[in-house]
C-alpha cells in the first residue's frame, strides 16, 4: 500500500476512487475496530459494526466538511452505528445515589501497568449499558446531555449509570489489586 496522506485519502475518497477508499480502510480499520469492540458484545458483532460504519463513512465522505478532526468524524460514525445496534431497553431509567456506594480509592499503580487490551477487557466485563455510558462519557468525552440524546434517556439516568459503572470498575480494580498483591 502506498503511503497516502490523510488529505489525499479524503480527496480520493470524495472522488470515489477505489484505491483511496481501500487505503482508508487499511489505514483506519484498526483504530475503528478498537472503538467498535468497546461497544459491541463480541468480536463478530464488532466486525459487523465496523463494516457498516466504513460503508457509511465512504458514502458520507463526499459531504465531509473539513471542520475538526477527520478521525474524530469517523469515530462518531462508528459510535453512532454501534449505538444503533444496542438494545436500548437495557438503559432503564434507574437511579443510584452516591451514598449507596462505598467510596474506596484505587492506587494508580494498580492500573498504570495495565495495557490497553487489559483495560478493554476490564471495561468489557461490566454490563453493556453501564459500559456504553462509561465509554461515551469517560473515554469519548460526551456530555450527559449528548448521551441522553443519543440513547434517548434522561440525563439523570446517564449520570447514575455512569456512577454505577465507575463503582463496578473500582471494585474490579480493587480485586485486580488484591490478586496482584497475592501474586
Amino acid at each position, binding site marked *: 500500500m502506498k503511503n497516502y496522506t490523510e488529505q489525499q485519502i479524503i480527496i480520493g475518497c470524495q472522488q470515489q476512487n477505489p484505491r483511496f477508499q481501500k487505503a482508508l480502510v487499511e489505514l483506519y480499520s484498526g483504530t475503528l475496530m478498537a472503538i467498535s469492540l468497546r461497544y459491541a458484545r463480541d468480536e463478530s458483532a464488532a466486525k459487523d459494526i465496523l463494516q457498516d460504519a466504513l460503508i457509511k463513512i465512504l458514502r458520507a465522505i463526499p459531504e465531509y466538511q473539513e471542520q475538526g478532526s477527520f478521525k474524530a468524524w469517523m469515530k462518531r460514525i462508528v459510535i453512532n452505528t454501534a449505538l444503533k445496534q444496542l438494545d436500548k431497553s437495557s438503559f432503564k431509567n434507574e437511579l443510584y445515589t452516591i451514598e449507596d456506594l462505598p467510596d474506596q480509592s484505587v492506587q494508580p499503580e494498580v492500573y498504570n501497568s495495565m495495557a*490497553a487490551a487489559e483495560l478493554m477487557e476490564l471495561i468489557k466485563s461490566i454490563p453493556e449499558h453501564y459500559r456504553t455510558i462509561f465509554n461515551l462519557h469517560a473515554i469519548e468525552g460526551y456530555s450527559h446531555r449528548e448521551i441522553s440524546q443519543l440513547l434517548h434517556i434522561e440525563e439523570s439516568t446517564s449520570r447514575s449509570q455512569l456512577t454505577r459503572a465507575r463503582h463496578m470498575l473500582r471494585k474490579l480494580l480493587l480485586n485486580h489489586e488484591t490478586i496482584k498483591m497475592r501474586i
Partner: protein
Amino acid sequence: MNQEFEKYARQELDQFEVPIDTEALWLNIEPIVQPKKDNRRIIWFFFSGLLIGAVAISLFFNRSKINVIESTDTSIITTTNSSQTLAAADPSSPVAPEVILQKDGIKQQTDHTPIKETNNQAKKQSTLYTSRPGAITEKAGFKSSVQSTDTELNNAEKLKDDAIVLAGVSKGLNVENDNVIPKKPTETGSSLVGIIEDSEEENDRGISKVLITENEMIPNRWEQALIPFSSFLSPVESDKRFASATDVIEGIKARNNAEMLATKEKAMAEAKAAAAKNKSKKRRGSFLNDIQFGLGLYGGISRSTTELDPRGVQNTEYELLRVNSEKQLETLHAGLNALIVSEQNLYLRTGVEYTRIGSLFSRSSERVETDSVPGIVEIQINQVTGDTNFIEGNLLRTKTTRYIKKSYNYFHLVDVPIILGYNFGSEPLTFGVEAGIYANIMIKSKGEIFREDGDFYDKGEDPNGWYKNNLGISPFIGCNVSYHLNDNLRIHFSPGFRFPSVFSTSTNPLQERHANLGVQAGVRYIFDNY
C-alpha cells in the same frame, strides 16, 4: 481515582488499534461502495475490444484472392473520299492484313490466327488463339468470355462469310487521323464503369482504334466482411416479447436477489482467497509489494519496407520483375500484453503478438481481336456533277481485352515481444520510451510470386524452401503516450520500429528482408498492488 483512571484509560484506548484483515474487509465493502458504472465501463471496453477484434479477424479471413479482368474494346470505322479506298477491305492491297479475306459466302472460314498476348508487368509473352467474338478463351488459370452486344457485332455474325477475323497486336496498325471517326465502343464484361482514355493507336492502313479502359474491378472488402444487420434479428414470438409490468418487477427483484446472493458468496470466496494471498504475500517479502501487474489488448498498423537483395548480377532482372509485380500493403498487428510495472516507473512488457504483412501481386495480359463489320468503305464524289457514290464493304474492328489478375500475399508472424520501458510524466497523461526484442515463434507465407523463369512460385507450399519457418530475434524500439482513464485503466498510442529481419533462406535467389514502422493502440488494465 476516577478522574486519573479515566484519563489513563482514555490515553491508552485512544491509541489502541486492533489488528484486522483489511483485505477481507475491503472485499466485503468494495462491491457496496463502488459505483457499478466503473465495472460497466470495463465491460464496455472489453466487449468493444472483442468486437473490433472480431471485425478485424473477419476482414482478414474474408480477404480472399481476387481475380480482376479488365476488358478493352476497340472499334474501328473508316471513311474515304473519292481518292481513297479502304486498305483493309481490299485484299490485294500491298498493306493488306496478314489474313485471307473470304468473300461472297463461297467458303466459310474462321481464321484462328495466332495473336500475341502481352504481359505488361511481367514482360511475359505467350501465344494464344482467338476465334470470332463470343468465343471463350481460357489461359493461365482464368477464364473470360468475350461478349459483344453491339448491333454491328450481330451484323457481323450474320455476315460471317464476309467476316474477317483478324488478329494482331495493335502496334501493326496505322491510320490517317483526319479520316477517322471513332465508333461507339462495344460493351463488354459486366457492369463496370468505363473511362475513355485519351490514347489512340493508328496503323498504316488508315485504321484507328480507340482504347476504352475500364476501371479496376475490386470488390468492396467491407461488403464481404460485414454481416447484414438483419441476420442478427431472429423472429421472436409475440408472447415472449412482451411481459406485464408485474412480471418485469418480479423479474428485477429475482435478479437483484440472485445478484446479491452471488455477490455475497463471491465476497466470501474472495475474502478467503485474499487471506491466503496475504499470507503468501508476507512470505514473498517487500519487493513484490512494490510492483504492479497489468494486462493489455492492442492492435496496430504499420508500413513494411521490403528489401530485395540480388545475390548475383544475373538476378538483377529477376529483382526488377519482383519489384514491379509486388506492391507492399499495410501490415496489421494484434496482441495481448502482460506488464510488470515497478515503483520506479520501469516496466517490462511481454505477451504474444500476431503480425500480418501483406503485399499485392499483380500480373496482366492483353488479347487483341480484330474482325470486320459491314459499312460504307468508300464515298466517291463526282466533282463535276456533284453525284455521290457510297461503296459498301467491310470495316475493320479491333477489340482489345486486358486481363489483370491480382492476388494478395501474406506473411503471418507470431512473436513474443520482450520490451523494457520507462514511463515519465504525471497522470492522466504519461509518456514512455521502450526497447527490446521480438522473438519470432512462427512465420507462415502465403501467396504467389514470380520465379526467375517467369512462372509462378507458390509461397505457401514453398517447394524450394525459399522462406524461413522462424525469424529468430529482431530488435525493437518505440515510445508511447498513455492516457489514464482511471487508476487501473489506460489507453495508449505507441509508435515503434521493428528492425529488418531476413525472411528468406539461402536457397532463395533474392534475399528478402522486412522492417516495420508503425503505431499500435490499445488498452491496458493495471491491477492494484499484488
